[in-house]
């Protein structure tokens, strides 16, 4: 615990990795590591957040992230409540602020928000007293995903310093890329982006990432290859002519992957469009750490919940019990 206690985590809300220093990120990962073994116990529950209330306000469809946050909260004995867009009053015309105020009147300890508008967590945090955790906002950030990706790479590589990480696919519409690029570069990795130009957002080099001319260039010598999902639901414009052409020109297949380092990690934030952004043999191959990402997601979310609501003086140490 010495390493954990050495850093003071000052963030009341978790908006994104942009606000986090390298030390913050390392501290969260270290905290997540200390929580991870709880998920391997026969009785997967500690009393760390007993009596705390976690509201998962998911105003955009999500299964994986919502479930991951819910499992994380329950493994620490918090009470969780899920509000999905289909059951929310926002479908009746209520504003997000009114929804939040009503939830707040029931005294939750944290609101975990998924929203289709970038910046919605900032808006929410201005109107509620409790901490807010961003579970994905528009095309901005998905910080818990970024952190779990970092944790997964660290488990396999020990450090991100000097690694070449290729991110391939729809960068423009990916909040995962938003968090990953910031987190990876902040920890010293070299991030290369590849995909059709219609998927590369304006000025993305300002984040420290570099744009590769081809997928082959991005993948060559890479320590990590991250393929992103083609976000069909987020595309208002016709950005690619067909999934077929995309799969042929930009999909991560065995042939392309052979250009990477022998011990390359293949990652994907899921859900995968098999045969489009990644061929099945790559997704399921020995390089793949995709399911490790999912496992680490629970640990990272446990850490985030603990750090924003459970690390007060009246709480027990992480992992205790």
């Amino acid at each position, binding site marked *: 615990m010495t390493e954990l206690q050495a850093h003071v985590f000052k963030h009341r809300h978790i908006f994104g990795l942009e606000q986090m220093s390298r030390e913050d990120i390392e501290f969260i990962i270290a905290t997540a590591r200390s929580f991870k073994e709880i998920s391997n116990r026969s009785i997967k529950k500690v009393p760390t957040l007993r009596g705390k209330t976690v509201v998962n306000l998911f105003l955009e469809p999500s299964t994986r992230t919502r479930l991951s946050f819910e499992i994380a909260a329950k493994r620490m004995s918090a009470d969780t409540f899920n509000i999905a867009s289909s059951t929310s009053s926002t479908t009746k015309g209520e504003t997000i602020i009114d929804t939040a105020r009503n939830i707040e009147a029931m005294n939750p300890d944290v609101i975990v928000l998924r929203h289709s508008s970038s910046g919605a967590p900032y*808006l929410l945090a201005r109107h509620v007293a409790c901490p807010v955790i961003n579970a994905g906002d*528009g095309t901005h950030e998905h910080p818990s995903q970024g952190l779990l990706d970092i944790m997964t790479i660290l488990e396999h590589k020990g450090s991100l310093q000097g690694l070449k990480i290729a991110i391939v696919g729809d960068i423009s519409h990916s909040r995962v890329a938003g968090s990953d690029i910031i987190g990876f570069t902040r920890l010293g990795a070299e991030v290369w982006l590849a995909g059709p130009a219609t998927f590369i957002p304006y*000025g993305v080099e300002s984040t420290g990432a570099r744009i590769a001319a081809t997928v082959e260039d991005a993948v060559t010598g890479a320590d990590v290859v991250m393929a992103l999902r083609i976000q069909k639901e987020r595309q208002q414009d016709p950005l690619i002519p067909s999934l077929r052409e995309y799969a042929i020109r930009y999909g991560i297949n065995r042939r392309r992957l052979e250009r990477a380092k022998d011990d390359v990690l293949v990652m994907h934030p899921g859900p995968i469009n098999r045969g489009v952004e990644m061929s099945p043999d790559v997704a399921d191959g020995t390089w793949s750490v995709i399911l490790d990402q999912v496992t680490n997601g629970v640990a990272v979310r446990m850490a985030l919940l603990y750090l924003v609501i459970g690390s007060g003086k009246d709480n027990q140490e992480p992992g205790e019990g």
Partner: protein
Amino acid sequence: MTAVIIIRNGRIIDPINDSDGTGEIWISGNRIVSPGSVDAGDAIRYDAAGSWVVPGLIDMHVHLREPGEEYKETIASGTRAAAAGGFTAVACMPNTRPVNDNGSITTFIRKTAETCPARVYPVGAVSKGSRGEELAEYAEMKEAGIVAVTDDGHPVMNSQMMRRALEYAGSHGLPVISHSEDAALSRNGCMHEGFVSTRLGLRGIPAAAESIMVYREIALAELTGCRMHLAHVSTAASVDLIRRAKERGVPVTAETAPHYFTLTDEAVRGYNTNAKMNPPLRSEADRRVIIEALGDGTFDAIATDHAPHSVLEKDIEFDLAANGIIGLETAVPLTLALVRSGRLTERRLVELLSVNPARILGVPGGTLAVGATADLTVINPTISFVYTEEAVLSKSHNSPFLGQTLTGKAVLTICDGRVGHDELQAR
């Protein structure tokens, strides 16, 4: 007996008369008269020492929201804000509910404004309902009092429609005001496309969405020979096109707004909806070119694009929030900042905020000549104040400048010989 107002010791800046010096302005009734030409026995006297006396400021681009959205602004509240900001006249855009696309709405606006502290010049719609499909009835609206036509808020996407609007408006002596935006290119965008939009995950509007349409408007003005005024210009590329068109003698004029020469897209960080507008706040490179173009005469006018919105439209998700900020009460201090930094002369400020808007719209004002309508503004260029929500006279408070200390303000506004705003205090 006609009231006489005497303003003494002020620095009188009147570009049309090529005058800039300390003197007296005498007003009798609704006219400026020669000092000493009327009985001053009961005159209301102001000491304007340290201040500038300039022709009444004219904001050629405001949204007054009445009829239809009176909860945001009314003609009465908007003109109170105008007078407080130093404006003796405003031109109001037609995107009310219903749209000002007929003589009845124009007449309603004129009549409602009759007792207000600033003149209101309605601008009619280019097309019925501002839908870009059929020409509105310009002749009827002109009879009722419009001074120009525009579909502001909605770009006229059909080039043939815009050509016909120019020709038809030209035949009635009306300029066409263009909201220059390629709607296909800007679609769903909510801020300037640049590295800030990428960082914030907000869909960007490229600068080209404006300049493409500015080029089309210049081409159509050149084709028809009719007067085209380009509203709220925000990009360096647009400025370049306008500068070259003017050199060729194309009948185009252009305005920009104080927020485009004061702020950049960095103001959006934190998802500040009070920095959301259309066109969006641009890059620092654009901002610098806008300032340069104000000084060198490429721009004819500074207009606020005063766009009141309530918290209902602003305190929501950024991409869903309404575009626009209020601007009537901050235009003078924000423009004065350019004078203080040496990038604008005092004379140029008056030209941009009074002389040229009057000329473009063909309305009275823009001068302090004897015999002219008594519309004038006294500006104290050094007074500092904190711009607070409580002090705002507009019904809405959507300004990115709230809480800031601003320097310079209008301390006396006289419209048609009547005092509309007075912080100078008669003696």
